């Protein structure tokens, strides 16, 4: 069942074909019918073997490709011009579709870049006093206006208030910090400045480090010294004598 989603990573048979064209480094205007058909069928067969749910579009395309391949194997009737003009070359039709599709696939990439850029810009909610009742008259809004406003809101940032940090500290375990700090202090031959033990800017890590130091003091694994009021604190491994 998990494999079902795999097909999503190719956006349909045209996408798969573009992938193959790139991989085989062949000319989109001169697709070798036999080679591309074999490769394509190999993919579709593999999907079957892996018990993927092959969407019908893939099978339709497979049929088209097989027709294209068999046509390319037939003797060339191009001398009979009237007959030749009557039906469109399936290869040309496929090329046309691939080029059309590729155009939008590229546009999608450009949109994605813009979308990412947009996520770096933030605004603030409109002030409560503004945009008061718009008066009488029929309401001319749609559900899409509401969804649009909702999206705008989700793009705004709500700043984390300090009290949330204490909830999050559990993510970094105090035990882990105790180990790290003890190792640091043992390796340092001399007392370490208290501040130097707090290298991170992550609030939860700072909190974990602080709790770890308290715990180590309690367990008499480290000693904290201070020369006088407001003087620097130094930490050294080993308990009080």
């Amino acid at each position, binding site marked *: 069942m*998990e*494999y079902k*989603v*795999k097909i*999503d*990573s190719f956006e349909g048979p045209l996408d798969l074909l573009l992938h193959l064209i790139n991989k085989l480094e062949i000319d989109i205007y001169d697709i070798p019918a036999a080679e591309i058909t074999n490769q394509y069928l*190999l*993919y579709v*067969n*593999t999907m079957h*073997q*892996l018990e993927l749910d092959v969407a019908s579009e893939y099978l339709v395309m497979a049929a088209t490709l097989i027709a294209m391949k068999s046509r390319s194997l037939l003797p060339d009737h191009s001398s009979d011009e009237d007959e030749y003009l009557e039906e469109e070359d399936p290869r040309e039709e496929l090329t046309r579709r691939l080029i059309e599709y590729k155009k939008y696939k590229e546009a999608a990439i450009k949109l994605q870049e813009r979308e990412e850029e947009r996520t770096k810009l*933030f*605004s*603030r*909610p*409109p*002030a*409560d*006093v*503004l*945009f*008061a*009742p*718009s*008066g009488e*008259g029929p*309401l*001319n*809004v*749609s*559900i899409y*206006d*509401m*969804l*649009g*406003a*909702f999206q*705008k*809101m989700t793009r*705004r*940032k*709500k*700043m*984390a*208030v*300090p009290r949330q940090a204490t909830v999050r500290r559990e993510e970094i375990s105090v035990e882990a910090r105790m180990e790290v700090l003890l190792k640091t202090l043992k390796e340092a031959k001399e007392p370490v400045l208290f501040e130097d033990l707090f290298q991170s*800017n992550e*609030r939860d890590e700072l909190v974990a480090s602080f709790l770890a130091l308290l715990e180590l003091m309690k367990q008499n694994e480290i000693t904290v010294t201070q020369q006088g009021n407001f003087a620097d604190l130094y930490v050294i491994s080993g308990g009080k004598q």
Partner: protein
Amino acid sequence: MTNESIIESLLFAAGDEGLSAEQMASVLDVDVQTVRNVVEQMAETLLHDETRGVTITKYGTEYRMMTKKENASFIQALADKPSPKTLSQAALETLAIIAYNQPVTRMEVEDIRGVKTERPIATLAARGLIEEAGRAEGAGRPILYATTNEFLDAFQLNSLDDLPPLSEGEVSIQQEADLFFGRFEEAMDEMAEE
């Protein structure tokens, strides 16, 4: 970018709730006193710069960016003009939150929006799109709001079940797909070798 620039960005995006010097210091990687000095200096400059329309003020431990009180009449004038749209974004946001979370208190709506929501709620109630739906348990027993039949009407919905789902969980499907992509190509290559 300068500390001033970053602080302006932070205070602007923080909205009405403001930020403490500690919060700003934690992301700026400077000490709290430095932040305080920079912010106080900025506030001073803003106050005297006639081309600027905002100030920074301190409430308790939080610094907040606000419009200058000298310009209040212009904002009031803007507030008095009817919105060119039939519902403002503030009202639409509020409506979306109520529609998808009903019944819900004003506090909960404000929590999600990060801004006071009295007026949008009054607007929506006046337009008959939302109504009171009892009271919540707990302190103060605040009013609960829910959407009305008129809401369904206005947005051409048969029922609340017709509200489009808000998230599709696309990312995780994409990731699963990517994860599998490698395995699939491997299998392909093996078959090709046979």
